[in-house]
C-alpha cells in the first residue's frame, strides 16, 4: 500500500463543500447509519432500554431524524435490548461477541457467546479477529475461526472487527480485510475497531478497507459492507466518511445495509446539526445530550 498516497487521497475529502440541502440529506443519511453503541462495564438494563428508546425516536419527529440502524450492546444486554425495541422494528440489535474486545478466550467459549447472543435475539454479531494469529502469520487459523463464527451466527449478520490499531500498517489492514472477506457472506461487514484502543477509525484506515471492498467486489461480484467505529464524534467527520464512500464505492454503498457508523456520541451531534440546518441558529450541545456539561 502507498501510505502517502492514501493520506493525500483522504485529505482531499476534507475539502469538499457540502451545504444546505445536500448537507441536510447527508446528516440524515448518517443518522440512519448509526449503530448506537453502549459498551461499558457499568451498562444496566435500564440504561440499555433508554438507549433503545433513543434509537427508535432520536428526536422530535417533526425534525425528521430517521431511526438509527441498530443498537450495539454486550451479549448480556441483548435480551434487554430486544425487549425494549420489540420485535416489529427496523432497528436491529447488534451484539459484540467473541470475548470482545481482546478476543483472548478459547474458541469454544467465543462460539458459545455468539450462539447465546443470537439465541437472545441479536440480529447482528460484531466479532473480533484473532490478532495474535494474524500477526504471527497463522492466517489459516484466523480464517478458520471467522468461518466458525459465520456458522455460529446462523441468520445473523456478521461484522468482523480487524482492530486496525493493532495491525500497525496499511498493508496488514488490507491483507486482513481480504482474509476476512474471503470467508464471510455477502452483506456481512468488515469493521475497523473495537473503540477500546487509543487509535480508532481514521479516514486512512477506512480508505484502505473500502478500497479492499471495491477490489474484492470487482474481482468476485460479492459486496461486503463496511463499518468504521470509534472516534467518530462529530457530524462533520461523519460527512467526510460519507464522501469517502461516495467517491470510492459509489451510491450503492450509501445505505445502512452497506455502511454503518459505530458510535455513541455521534448521533447527538448529527441531531444538533440537523436542527441547526433547519432553524439557521447554532445550537447548544446540552439540548441534545445529557452527558454534556450545561455550561
Amino acid at each position, binding site marked *: 500500500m502507498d501510505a502517502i498516497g492514501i493520506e493525500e487521497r483522504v485529505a482531499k475529502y476534507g475539502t469538499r463543500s457540502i451545504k444546505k440541502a445536500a448537507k441536510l440529506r447527508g446528516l440524515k443519511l448518517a443518522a440512519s447509519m448509526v449503530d448506537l453503541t453502549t459498551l461499558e462495564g457499568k451498562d444496566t438494563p435500564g440504561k440499555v432500554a433508554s438507549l433503545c428508546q433513543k434509537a427508535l425516536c432520536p428526536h422530535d419527529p417533526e425534525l425528521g431524524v430517521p431511526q438509527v440502524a441498530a443498537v450495539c450492546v454486550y451479549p448480556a444486554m441483548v435480551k434487554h435490548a430486544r425487549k425494549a425495541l420489540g420485535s416489529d422494528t427496523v432497528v436491529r440489535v447488534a451484539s459484540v461477541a467473541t470475548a470482545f474486545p481482546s478476543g483472548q478466550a478459547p474458541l469454544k467459549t467465543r462460539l458459545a457467546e455468539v450462539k447465546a447472543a443470537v439465541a437472545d435475539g441479536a440480529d447482528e454479531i460484531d466479532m473480533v479477529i484473532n490478532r495474535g494469529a494474524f500477526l504471527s502469520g497463522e492466517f489459516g487459523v484466523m480464517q478458520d475461526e471467522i468461518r466458525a463464527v459465520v456458522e455460529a451466527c446462523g441468520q445473523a449478520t456478521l461484522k468482523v472487527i480487524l482492530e486496525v490499531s493493532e495491525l500497525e500498517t496499511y498493508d496488514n489492514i488490507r491483507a486482513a480485510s481480504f482474509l476476512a472477506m474471503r470467508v464471510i457472506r455477502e452483506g456481512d461487514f468488515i469493521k475497523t475497531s473495537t473503540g477500546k484502543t487509543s487509535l480508532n477509525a481514521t479516514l486512512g484506515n477506512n480508505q484502505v478497507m473500502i478500497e479492499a471492498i471495491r477490489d474484492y467486489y470487482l474481482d468476485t461480484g460479492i459486496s461486503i459492507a463496511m463499518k468504521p467505529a470509534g472516534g467518530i464524534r462529530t457530524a462533520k467527520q461523519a460527512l467526510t466518511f460519507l464522501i469517502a464512500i461516495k467517491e470510492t464505492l459509489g451510491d450503492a454503498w450509501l445505505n445502512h445495509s452497506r455502511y454503518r457508523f459505530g458510535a455513541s456520541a455521534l448521533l447527538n451531534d448529527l441531531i444538533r446539526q440537523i436542527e441547526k440546518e433547519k432553524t439557521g441558529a447554532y445550537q447548544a*450541545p446540552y439540548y441534545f445530550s445529557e452527558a454534556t456539561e450545561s455550561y
Partner: protein
Amino acid sequence: MSRLPITKTPKVYVGGAFIRSESARVFPLKDAAGDFFANIPQCTRKDLRNAVEAAAKAGFGWAKRTAYNRGQIIYRLGEMIEARAGEMAAALVLGGASKVAAAREVSVTVDRLIYYAGWTDKYEQVLGNVNPVAAPYFNFTVTEPMGIVGVLAPEQSPLLALVSLFAPAITSGNAVVALASTSQPYPAILLGEMLATSDLPGGVVNVLTGFRKEMVPTFAAHRHLRALVGVANADERKALALGAADSMKRLHLLKAEEPIDWLADSVQSLYAVRDTLEFKTTWHPIGA
C-alpha cells in the same frame, strides 16, 4: 544600514490562540491621519461559532476555580495592561484619541479590572441570601454564572468600554465572546495579547473583530450564548430582542444613541456582576 520595517499582523484572540478569520477576510484599518495601518480580521459567524465552542471548553473550569483565584487572575490582567500602558495608549491615539485622553482611558481600564478583581470573592456575600421562611427549612439563595456571555462593545472607548462590559461577566465565572469596536479594533487586538499573558485560561475571553452587521444576527440567534451585554442601536436592539426571545437569552443592552461616560465610577457596579448570574434557591430541611 537601514532595517526593513517589521510590521505586526493583527490577529484575534480566540481559544487561547491568535488566529485569522476562518474566512481569511480582512478589512483595512487607517490611523487618525488616514494612512493605512494594518489589515484587521473580518470575522464571520463561523468564527463566532468556533469562539463559542472554545468558551464552552474553557468556561466550566474557570467557573470551578476558587473565587479568590479568579480575583488573582483578573488582578494580573490589570498588571499586564499597566506594564504595557504606553503601547496601549499609543493604540488608542491611533484611533484618534489625544495622548492625555488615551493615557487616562488605559489607567481607568486597569482600575476597573482591579475593582472587579476585588468583587470575585465578595459578590456572593452580598447577592446570596438566607431567606426567612415560616417552616422548619433552611432556605438559601446562591448564585451561579450563566455560562457563555456575548459582549457587543461600542464604537467609542474601544478599550475601556470593552473591558467594562466583559470584566463583570468573568468575575463570577462566565466565559465571554466579545465583538470589538469596528472602527477602532486595534486596542482590542492588543488586549488579546495581554489576556494571553494574564494567566486567564485560554478561551475564557475571546475577542473577535469584524462588522457588526454581519455578526449581530448570529449573536442574537446562537442558542449557546446565555446572555448578551453591550451597546446597540435601535435596529440592533430590535433584532437582538427577537433573537433573544427565540433562544431564551438574557439581554442587558445600553443605547448607542445616548452618550455613556465610560470613565465615570458609576459605570462599575456590583449590579453589572449580577446581570450575568443565575440565582438558585434551595430548601433544606432542618430538625424540629
